[in-house]
């Protein structure tokens, strides 16, 4: 399989992961008054209330799903952006530069977002006394 074909297959696979995890995230955050998932907003009130943030963050499954969604969404989004930019027919050197910038930017954001998810998990565990 050619390299771009592999990346395109990963792009589709990441889309499926995003469909489920971002669908769940959007349901919890933006459809909470229409669809009720009591387990995901355990403290009641608004989904972004600190008590709900802590309640969600202390679950290891939730932390893993955040990191998975972060990686899938960064890859899907940045690879999609790369394709769009490449269709504008840039020079060969510019293609290389775009790829490197997107790769490094994506890795940096992935590291930062993963740190935030793990640190929130530890913080929530401390706050709940376990």
């Amino acid at each position, binding site marked *: 399989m050619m390299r771009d074909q592999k990346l395109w297959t990963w792009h*589709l696979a990441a889309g*499926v992961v995003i469909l489920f995890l971002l669908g769940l995230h959007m349901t919890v955050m933006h459809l909470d*008054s229409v669809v009720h998932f009591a387990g995901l907003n355990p403290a009641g009130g608004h989904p972004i209330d600190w008590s709900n943030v802590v309640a969600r963050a202390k679950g290891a499954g939730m932390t893993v799903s955040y990191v998975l969604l972060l990686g899938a969404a*960064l890859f899907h989004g940045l690879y999609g952006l790369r394709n769009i930019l490449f*269709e504008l027919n840039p020079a060969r050197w510019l293609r290389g530069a775009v790829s490197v910038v997107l790769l490094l930017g994506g890795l940096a954001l992935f590291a*930062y977002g993963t740190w935030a*998810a793990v640190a929130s998990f530890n913080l929530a565990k401390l706050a709940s006394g376990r």
Partner: protein
Amino acid sequence: MLETKGHPNRLGLWGWLGGGRWGVERYLYTLHRVTGLGLLAYFLLHIVVTSSRALGQGPWQSAMASVSGPLFKLGEYLVFLAFAFHAVNGIRLGLIELGFAVGPPIEPVYPYRTSLDTQRPLAIAALLVAAVLVVMGTLNFWVLE
């Protein structure tokens, strides 16, 4: 990425924004890209803003306060609309890409049938599902919340 096979996109931005007299699916393609770019821009900022939860309650609440107000609410609503369309249209594109929604190969006998006979109903169904999500989101954002 699709290879251009020696026929690069000489039209630049207009090459993927404008669909001319191609069917509605061509404009769904353009909208898929526009919503994708919007979602990506939001997502990159979202990572930075929501990471404040790792620093505790104070930083979280001040970060949330800095992105509150009617303008941000409208922005979030637009993000939800973009998500509803991009997700459902993405399922449609995936089905076509994997060959599930193009119909079986048939003899070219008049009156000719094309894969569009399968794809068009799928596009309409996708738009209807997206519309249902938009209605649910609109209720949640502006009526029930």
